[in-house]
């Protein structure tokens, strides 16, 4: 097919939250023309299947400025989008089972304070007084009062619609076969022969990003893993913050939150199989049963509650727990935002603002050097490039 290529200032490949937030802010803040190509439906993969935590607490310190920036957007997100994303700012509470872990929580309180995040420690007694749901196994907790949670199923599509209303060209069912350089432009070819051109390109294809980075000479080790999620029947509304168990033991990992309608969404522990090529991810039955055990352990009242559904998704993991964010170190005009290691939801509006700034002005006020794709160049330069 020899179609005339559509041209815009910026081409975004991948319609999850990273792509759609960037598209929105490119339009709203910078007035650049944007085309976004999504293989299937906006926000359906990791963006739509994750837990929905909007937390700064517990993140790597280098992500806190970005997370603060995102939190500012979350605070006005309904106005921004004209849609209710069900963002609930009633805090994020981390609890733990050992004094050693309590000391880790306390250290984190000290570490994030200069970064503008004020956390509060709770003793077991204080937790009992304020929440009263925890078992005696819980010895301490740490609250980030202004963190919270939102609805991931609707967030990506809502950002996508807002970007579209702001003038971005959003194309669903548009799988990109390959992207090439043509002079000073990037040209993306969809599998059905359409072409799209732009001076700048942003790759936000989540767990599927490795092949695009590879094609531009910047291979990244990227693993697909499936979050193991579940949801209960509706219960009387009782719990405000999203709650997590802080532990170095992977099988004890747990997080849960109650939505306004009353259901409790939970996840955590070992990840499950995610097959990026087949676009399929699974929940392992033994993971579910283990999660039920751990939920009873932290909140005994779960014993009389019903689990009604489980699901998984496809998340990209970079191997060093650090996302890939920022400009290419090899190709001018090329940018990346992927590999968020299962923690991208909370910071996505910040990522969108930052990438829009970077693409439009060449600079960003938020430090993202730690996330540069360049860090893999050294480690992989002596290795054969995978085909």
């Amino acid at each position, binding site marked *: 097919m020899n179609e005339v290529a559509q041209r815009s200032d910026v081409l975004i490949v991948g319609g999850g939250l990273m792509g759609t937030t960037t598209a929105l802010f490119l339009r709203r803040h910078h007035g650049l023309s944007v085309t976004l190509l999504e293989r299937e439906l906006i926000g359906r993969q990791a963006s739509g299947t994750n837990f929905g935590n909007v937390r700064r607490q517990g993140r790597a310190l280098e992500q806190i400025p970005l997370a603060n920036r995102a939190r500012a957007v979350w605070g006005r997100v309904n106005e921004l989008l004209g849609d209710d994303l069900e963002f609930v700012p*009633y805090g994020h509470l981390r609890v733990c089972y050992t004094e050693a872990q309590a000391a880790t929580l306390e250290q984190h309180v000290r570490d994030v304070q200069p970064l503008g995040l004020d956390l*509060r420690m709770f003793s077991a007694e204080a937790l009992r*007084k*304020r*929440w*009263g*749901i925890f078992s005696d196994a819980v010895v301490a907790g740490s609250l980030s*009062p202004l963190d919270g949670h939102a609805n991931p199923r609707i967030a990506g599509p809502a950002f996508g619609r807002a970007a579209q209303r702001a003038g971005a060209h959003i194309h669903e069912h548009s799988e990109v076969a390959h992207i090439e350089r043509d002079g000073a432009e990037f040209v993306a070819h969809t599998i059905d022969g359409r072409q799209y051109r732009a001076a700048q390109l942003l790759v936000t294809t989540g767990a599927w990003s490795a092949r695009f980075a590879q094609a531009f000479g910047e291979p990244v080790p990227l693993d697909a893993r499936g979050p193991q999620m579940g949801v209960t*029947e*509706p*219960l*009387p*509304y*009782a*719990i*405000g*913050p999203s709650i997590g168990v802080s532990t170095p033991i992977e099988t004890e990992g747990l997080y849960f939150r109650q939505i306004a*309608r*009353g259901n409790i969404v939970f996840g955590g522990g070992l990840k499950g199989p995610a097959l990026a090529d087949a676009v399929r991810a699974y929940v392992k039955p033994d993971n579910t049963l283990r999660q039920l055990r751990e939920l009873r352990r932290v909140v005994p*009242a779960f014993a*009389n*509650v*019903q689990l009604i559904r489980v699901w998984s998704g496809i998340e990209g993991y970079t191997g060093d727990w650090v996302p890939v964010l920022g400009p290419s170190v090899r190709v001018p005009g090329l940018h990346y935002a992927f590999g968020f290691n299962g923690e991208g939801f909370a910071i996505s509006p910040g990522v969108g603002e930052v990438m829009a700034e970077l693409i439009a002005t060449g600079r960003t006020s938020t430090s993202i050097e730690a996330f540069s794709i360049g860090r893999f160049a050294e480690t992989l330069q002596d290795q054969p490039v995978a085909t």
Partner: protein
Amino acid sequence: MSKPLPPAGSGGRFVRLAETDRPALHLRIDGEPATALEGDTLLVALLTHGRRVRTSEFGDGSRAGFCLMGACQDCWVWDEAGQRLRACSTVITEGMTVRTTPPASLWPVTPDVAARERGEVLR
């Protein structure tokens, strides 16, 4: 053998048509004494005693079961300890206690939420 029970009057929703010559069993429904017949499911016991099994969480009123075969999941009730019972597939036993509304102890409101609902600000 106890005397056969008369068909449910204005109190119940279901109507007994046969098999009434069965031993009576005693249970407590929402704290009130009630009788049913050996072999009854909990759903039948509830609906020969009254006209509802539970209340919808979403404001559209009473429910009284729907499929009677364990598929619709619309007849889940509670015992006094908060244990869940699917009424259509649970056979009654002597002395059973059942509640058509959840006991408060099942999923208590946290003081945190209660305070927020009163308009207090906690930090």
